């Protein structure tokens, strides 16, 4: 059974149609990577699934329930968590407070303050440090940990490695393996194709608001993905009819 099903989803920024008729499903335990150039609509799509951006048409079905008109806070309590682009930590609050504030949703699950710190060892000595005083990698780890504190069924991660040093990216991905190993269902927006190929089980390539290519990671070549990324492969065998 699919955890997430997106049907003919449209989302706008004013007159600009940022997401155009996007449809896909994410089965339980899969890691779907959304790739695409800047402005392809990945962030808007993720925010629309999380309820932070209003869809202009289409459906978001989560665990068999249409949540298209459900506000963001209720979607989170239902089990959708978004790690937003730019981390958006509560900068005046400590790491511990950032984690605890997300833990009050009351959803039962494996993640709590202790297990999050175990999954992200780099946060252990930083629990009392304010969000504003963290490095980019530490902020990203906190942001993922904060989302995990809601014990999500579906984890949406936007631009995991954006603005991070290679060392920080390695550390965050290393910790993410623990999350993946726990059987989490993840939709990941990532620019780093090599990492996407290693981590994801499915890939969807977006261009100008549409999904141009979708398939199992093992079935796609890096060349196919790169071509779709830059819009060079319209009409390819794996192309999704948008």
């Amino acid at each position, binding site marked *: 059974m699919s955890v997430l099903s997106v049907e003919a989803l449209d989302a706008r920024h004013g007159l600009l149609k940022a997401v155009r008729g996007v449809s896909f499903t994410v089965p339980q335990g899969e890691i779907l990577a959304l790739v695409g150039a800047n402005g392809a609509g990945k962030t808007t799509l993720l925010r629309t699934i999380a309820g932070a951006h209003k869809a202009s048409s289409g459906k978001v079905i989560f665990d068999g329930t249409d949540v298209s008109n459900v*506000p*963001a*806070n209720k979607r*989170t309590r239902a089990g959708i*968590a978004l790690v937003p682009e730019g981390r*958006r930590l509560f900068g005046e609050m400590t790491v511990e407070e950032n984690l605890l504030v997300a833990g009050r949703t009351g959803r039962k699950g494996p993640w709590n303050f202790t297990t999050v710190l175990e999954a992200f060892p780099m946060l252990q000595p930083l629990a009392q440090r304010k969000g504003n005083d963290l490095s980019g990698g530490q902020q990203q780890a906190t942001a993922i940990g*904060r989302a995990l504190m809601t014990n999500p069924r579906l984890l949406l991660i936007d631009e995991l490695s954006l603005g991070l040093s290679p060392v920080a990216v390695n550390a965050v991905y290393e910790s993410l393996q623990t999350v993946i190993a726990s059987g989490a269902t993840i939709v990941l927006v990532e620019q780093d194709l090599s990492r996407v190929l290693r981590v994801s089980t499915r890939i969807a390539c977006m261009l100008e608001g549409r999904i141009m290519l979708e398939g199992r990671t093992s079935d796609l070549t890096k060349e196919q993905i790169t071509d779709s990324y830059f819009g060079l492969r319209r009409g390819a065998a794996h192309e999704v009819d948008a």
Partner: protein
Amino acid sequence: MIDQIVQGVLLGGYYALVACGLSFMYGVMRIINLAHGSLAILAAFLVWYIAEHLGVSPFIALLIVVPIMAALGWILQRTVLDRSLRSGPLTPLLSTFGIAIIIDNLLFERFGADTRSLAPDIGDLSYKSWTLPGGVTVGQLGLLTLGTAVVLIVGLQLFLKYAPLGRAIRATAEDPDTAELMGINSRSVYAAAAAIALATVAIAGAFLGMRSTFDAYSGGAQLIFAFEAVVIGGTGSLWGTLLGAIALGVAQNLGAQVNPRGFLIAGHLLFFCVLAVRFFAAGGFSLGWLKALRPRQPA
């Protein structure tokens, strides 16, 4: 001189009590509640009404008025302030100004122009004092007011730091959109914050009634002093509000020593000086435009 400073500190305690709800509301929702003073007077009338008609102490009456005012805060937030918050920064100012006018006139309609006081209901607490070495007198009510303000502010700080709802309030105050993504219903959190703010207003109103007289239109002056205390101490900071309130009280009392009219002027002057310092510290009246007029050096 020392006696005047001590009296100023005690007066500052009262200002802190009035200002902490205003500061809390601004810190969380960025609303400057122009109805704050009128709401304090409403609470004072409620305490007075219950004390008079049930024959109970104002402190007992306060136990009834605090939840009433908290409920009023919740309702006001959900019905008026929440909607006005979504319409830009000016609309909450206008709405709360409107609420103040409605409260003032309803109170005038119900209670008339007569002044009231809770002092007769608290016995000798209203005038009893201790005399310290050096002739410094410390009024019992003033000390109780200051103590209540400190307890309230410490309590609010602890609540914001350690209570799950307190953390949710801080998160929402910092970034309501991201708070929503953490499962926090920002509308409910704002309503809870408004309820807390008005619960503190109820306490402030009761102490106002105990230490002085009040009538239906006394709210304006309370708002001005509360606003000055909040601005002097730094908007949105509860500890800052306490310090700002004490600074205002001390300035007023010292001003009164210089000239009988100096009480108000000294407070306003301190407020103006703090505003001016903040303005220039933020780069106000930058001379950049003068530099732009200077002839350019050849490259």
